[in-house]
């Protein structure tokens, strides 16, 4: 067993883990953070995307011991706590935009999509449609066909920049 300590969504956690434990299983089974999904489990689909020290990673392809000492952000830490009981008021602009633009059907890929998109927007606050598509090439959706996902990311980007742009895509 190996000791790990990491900061997950703002809280410090310490545990003894098997070296072969994957980060996604640590998050889900040790910490109960089941918001992060396991999809393909082969580094393809991106459903398990979280941020490790500020960068998007596929947590099914990172050992928990490799993340020791790191800062992890998952989908569960994205929304701000809303004291008046209005949960939606605390949503991150990406969460809101995936809702309003219908960026999901079954929702399984959504936690990974949003975490990958958040990293993309931190590098490029005003991506073109093409840049969003390339930026999210590590995330697979088997329902929507991506049009509304791209729209949602650009809508969120506009909100985060504080302006309004035409986000129509794929004419």
């Amino acid at each position, binding site marked *: 067993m190996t000791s790990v300590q990491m900061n997950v969504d703002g809280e410090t956690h310490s545990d003894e883990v098997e070296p072969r434990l994957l980060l996604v299983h640590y998050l889900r089974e040790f910490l109960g953070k089941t918001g992060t999904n396991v999809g393909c489990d082969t580094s393809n689909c991106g459903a398990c995307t979280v941020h490790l020290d500020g960068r998007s990673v596929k947590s099914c392809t990172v*050992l928990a011991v490799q993340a020791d000492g790191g800062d992890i952000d998952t989908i569960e830490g994205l929304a701000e706590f809303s004291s008046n009981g209005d949960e939606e008021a605390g949503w991150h602009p990406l969460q809101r935009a995936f809702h309003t633009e219908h960026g999901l059907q079954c929702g399984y890929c959504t936690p990974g999509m949003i975490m990958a998109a958040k990293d993309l927007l931190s590098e490029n606050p005003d991506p073109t449609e093409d840049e969003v598509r390339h930026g999210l090439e590590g995330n697979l959706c088997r329902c929507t066909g991506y049009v509304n996902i791209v729209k949602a990311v650009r809508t969120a980007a506009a909100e985060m920049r504080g302006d309004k742009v035409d986000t129509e895509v794929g004419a």
Partner: protein
Amino acid sequence: MIPATFDYIRAGSVEEAVAALTEHGDEAKLLAGGHSLLPLMKLRLASPEVLIDLGRVDALRGVCELDDGRLSIGAMTAHQDVIDNDLVRQHCGVLADVTRQVGDAQVRHRGTIGGALAHGDAASDLPAALLALDGTVVVQGPSGQREIAAADLFVDYLATSISDDEVITEVRVPKFDGSWGWNYQKFSRVAQAWAIVGSLGLVKRSNGNVEEARVGLTHMGTVPLRATAVEQALAGAAIDGIADAAEHAAEGTSAPTDLNATSEFREHLARVLTKRALTAAAG
């Protein structure tokens, strides 16, 4: 999918990693970014008994200029850090451009240049690039350091000339000035997949002619290859000779047949992609 059990050693330095490799021999594997090794371990295609993690060896990260004018890239430098590095962009933009086509964003955040080269997969992008750039790797073992030219590095399917007790510490590449153009054509079925075939063309232009051309081929054999017949046909030739020269791209290759493509289709792709890459590189 869960890897088989292994003992985990976190190396604090290259020397510690070499000592652990020496102690455990071929039961041990080095862990860099893990984006080739961990998927193999999850599929139980690899089951090392000891994993030696280089993640804390900070001396293996970063880029600097060598006295001989080449760039030295630390083996544990993540793909994204190669792409973003000012020295790489300024002096070896071709490496940044090829690295940008490796995997997807998440893979580029974790995968490393040294790990990709040590894995030695002829279907991945960086081995063919290092070959075309005439790059080298520096490895450190129990008896010191040695430098291995890319042409001597890749010896067979997923096999390199790096010994079991050696660690890649640096990747060295020459500078390519403004007289060089380049283009990497990667043909794959879906966006993030490995190349079914890839062709990296570099062209040094001089008075409207090709002074020197280089072509690196991805996935045209068990090891990455140079299309030497194309390079020879183009040396000193006019730029409009590219299409004819590219017809030689599959000569000397041994392209595999698999679910994605027959050997013959790969040969066709090599010719087409090489023509496109060299045409764009000369443009």
